[in-house]
């Protein structure tokens, strides 16, 4: 994670950071990843419980003690690095609203996370350093594979992070104030896509 006081530069830095942490989670066994996914599925939409888990894991990182997670089907050994990566993503997920967390779970169920991730990634890539609000064209292919219901779900998910997509044009409204929330959404989508894919 970035140092405090260190100014991040661009989307590439974020992408590398997320990829680094994703790789750590990817090093978990299949059972471990499955356990994490089922645990998260139970907690998405319950912000307080997600935060409690985060604090519990932080405590474990401090003291090395065992952590009980109700949703986990089996004992899972975690390295310090994996634990850190899980904490990183929990931090991102807890930035999102409960509504967004529920929408993420629904998106996972509908298997549209890759499309949503591509949409957010593409938007961040183009506007990361853009400091002024504006309307930008949306590449039609980004949403073309989605059906009506999935499109609505996606609009709501990114909309709650402040990215307003207009499918009629198609275009989107960029607001630099939404950057932190979109970065957190990007990280959350990356994690869930990894877990759901495996």
């Amino acid at each position, binding site marked *: 994670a*970035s*140092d*405090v*006081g*260190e*100014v*991040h530069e661009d989307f590439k830095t974020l992408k590398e*950071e997320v990829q680094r942490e994703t790789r750590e989670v990817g090093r978990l066994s299949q059972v471990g990843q499955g*356990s994490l996914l089922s645990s998260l599925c139970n907690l998405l*939409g319950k912000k307080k419980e997600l935060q409690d888990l985060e604090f519990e894991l*932080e405590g474990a*990182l*401090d*003291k*090395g*003690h*065992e*952590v*009980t*997670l*109700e949703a*986990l089907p089996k*004992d*899972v*050994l*975690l*390295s*310090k690095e994996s634990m*850190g*990566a899980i*904490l*990183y993503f929990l*931090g*991102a997920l807890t*930035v999102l*609203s*409960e*509504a967004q967390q*529920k*929408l993420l779970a*629904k998106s996972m169920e509908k298997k549209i996370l890759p499309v949503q991730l591509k949409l957010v990634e593409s938007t961040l890539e183009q506007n990361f350093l853009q*400091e002024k609000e504006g309307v930008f064209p949306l590449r039609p292919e980004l949403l073309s594979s989605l059906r009506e*219901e999935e499109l*609505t*779900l996606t*609009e*709501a998910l990114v*909309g*709650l*992070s402040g990215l*307003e*997509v207009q499918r009629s044009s198609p275009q989107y409204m960029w*607001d630099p*104030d*939404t950057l*932190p*929330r979109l*970065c*957190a959404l990007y*990280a959350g989508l990356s994690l869930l896509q990894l877990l759901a894919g495996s």
Partner: protein
Amino acid sequence: MTMFENVTRALARQLNPHGDLTPLDSLIDFKSFRPFCVVLRKRKSTLFWGARYLRTDYSLLGLLEPGTSPTDPTDAGSFGFKNMLDAHLEGEVDVPRTVKVKGTAGLSRNSTLEVQTLSVAPTALESLHKERKLAADHPFLKEMRERGENLYVVMEVVETVQEVTLERAGKAEGCFSLPFFAPLGLQGSVNHKEAVTIPKGCVLAFRVRQLMISGQDEWDIPHLYNDSMQTFPAGEKPEEEKFTLIQ
């Protein structure tokens, strides 16, 4: 995201884009982020969505041996860009910004927000550093030393000059009323009316610097710090590498 978070994030970005001014997440915690308050930083944090600090309920002044405290430990400075901030917040607390994906919403706000900065005066810090050592036996310091935590001291805050009430009302329709959103319980979460009263003197954003401790009772707050610096001397934290998640 709560109204309070919306406001503090907008403020931090407006005052210090891409800088190290950290918005406060929770209104209820503001008294624990006054100048000299000691805070912890989450182990895994990132500036991309905000370095996050945890309150400790301790002030640096309370962790030092008894002695004289600076009579005026802070410098205050009012901001002169109230209008600019107002204009910005007008949009920022606009619920439809996030919900108007399909909805209709109204926003009302019956007050404006005035802020000022308070920062620890360099002379106050210098005299504290010269005159007062750390209370080495303080239980909090002992616990933090055992855990190998890094400690940070709030050195500058942006606070409200007057009490202010912000209101917003959201009434989302369209996509959120589609049948498949109902089981997710989303209608309730976007159809709402809320208001928050931010008291006078409420910290909205803050800056920290790392507390460095050497030996048992020597301390310093350097101007620059990074992740490699440890508040407590290295080698005092037990090494643990593996963690078990148990059903």
